[in-house]
């Protein structure tokens, strides 16, 4: 019986939270005090504890012996090859070095051409030739960059929502493309090619999102990314510019 008639009984929830030590210190003290005084709640508490103790008797199945070995045999072939940052950089350096060299050459040629124009106006064609050659080099590199970016975009657009980590393989490639693309974009901007600069900037935004996103991108995130590609007509623009560049080269 309750010593104080107005004291309310404890709820199942309160008893359960007390059993699991989830309440505050004040809650625990209140429950303890109440249980000392109330036979009904004490019986309920004992019953609840008995039920929860019985749960511990639920049979648990053990995995077969050698389970760990079998588990490794199952997952090992499915693990993607992860590259360390050293490997990643060593793989990326030649392309980055080429991109940086070409970018530097184009900018230097452009600057030299302008200086040459001022100092020796009678020989503008040689500087123009250098600039033209380096611009062609840059265009060839950008063409290659766009083709490789196009492959990543196509895979993103066609990725299967149901597949585990649908864009896992694209992340490393996107990271490589971001670094090189940034150099090409700056060079394009410096030589005043706004069209290529704008395209590379839009491309870079999507590639950064892929490179920094989770490998197991959710269906919602993937849909959002596709929408961005579609909104900016990115795949179409990349295809058109890459084709134009190829035609010019030929």
């Amino acid at each position, binding site marked *: 019986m309750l010593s104080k008639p107005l004291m309310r009984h404890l709820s*199942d*929830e309160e008893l*359960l*939270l007390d059993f*699991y030590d*989830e309440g505050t210190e004040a809650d625990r003290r209140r429950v303890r005090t109440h249980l000392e005084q109330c036979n009904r709640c004490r019986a309920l508490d*004992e*019953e*609840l*504890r*008995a*039920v*929860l*103790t*019985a*749960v511990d*008797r*639920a*049979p*648990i*199945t053990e*995995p077969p012996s050698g*389970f*760990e070995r079998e*588990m*490794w045999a*199952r*997952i*090992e072939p*499915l*693990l*993607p*090859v*992860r*590259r*360390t*940052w050293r*490997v990643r950089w060593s793989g990326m350096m030649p392309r980055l070095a080429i991109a940086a060299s070409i970018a530097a050459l184009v900018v230097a040629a452009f600057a030299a051409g302008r200086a040459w124009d001022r100092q020796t106006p009678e020989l503008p064609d040689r500087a123009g030739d250098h600039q033209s050659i380096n611009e062609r080099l840059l265009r060839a590199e950008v063409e290659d960059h766009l083709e490789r970016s196009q492959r990543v975009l196509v895979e993103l657009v066609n990725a299967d929502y149901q597949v*585990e*980590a649908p864009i*896992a393989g694209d992340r490393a490639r996107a990271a490589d493309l971001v670094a090189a693309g940034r150099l090409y974009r700056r060079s394009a901007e410096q030589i005043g090619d706004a069209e290529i600069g704008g395209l590379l900037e839009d491309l870079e935004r999507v590639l950064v999102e892929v490179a920094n996103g*989770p*490998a*197991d991108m959710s269906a919602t995130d993937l849909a959002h990314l596709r929408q961005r590609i579609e909104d900016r007509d990115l795949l179409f623009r990349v295809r058109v510019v890459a084709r134009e560049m190829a035609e010019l080269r030929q």
Partner: protein
Amino acid sequence: MHESDEASVAGARNGDREAFRTLVDRHSRYLFHVVYRVTRNAEDAQDVVQDTWLKAHAQLGRFESRANVRTWLTRIAINCAIDHLRCARRREHACDPVTFEQEPAEGWIDTAEAEPERLVFAGEIGACVDQTLRRLTALERAAFMLRHIEGMSIDDIGAALGLNTSATKHSIFRAVRKMRAALAPFREETGCCRSR
């Protein structure tokens, strides 16, 4: 020398497969137990443990060094187990995933009508508990087992299951209420569940 879990995660993150294998060797059995408590099926549990490792490998970069590796793996495993149950339910009943939180298809069986005389033995109380656990919704079972067996706090369970604190508490309350109802006849008739 025994490499710490954190060191193994760091090694695996840098592409060291042997470091990842160390984690697999060390935690697979534990993860099986955790997952089995949610799926109540050994074959499903093995598949879920496999999914757990693949997901953990994909998420190595997201592991925070101050977190506990086993807790991190447990969260991934529970989420994989719930996804697995969702997919299984969808395949079997071709219905909305919302049913994940509904009662199992065959409905709740009142154990008072299910041969009470055979449950007078203590060992059979375990079978009754097992049967009752199978009949909880996946969410109730996951929340309850994480609290009761794994000793995770309600806040942590909520974070793992994507529920707020109130919803997490109510999942656990519902599970316990069903367990009490299922065990009530044996307690009244045999007293075998009464605590001493």
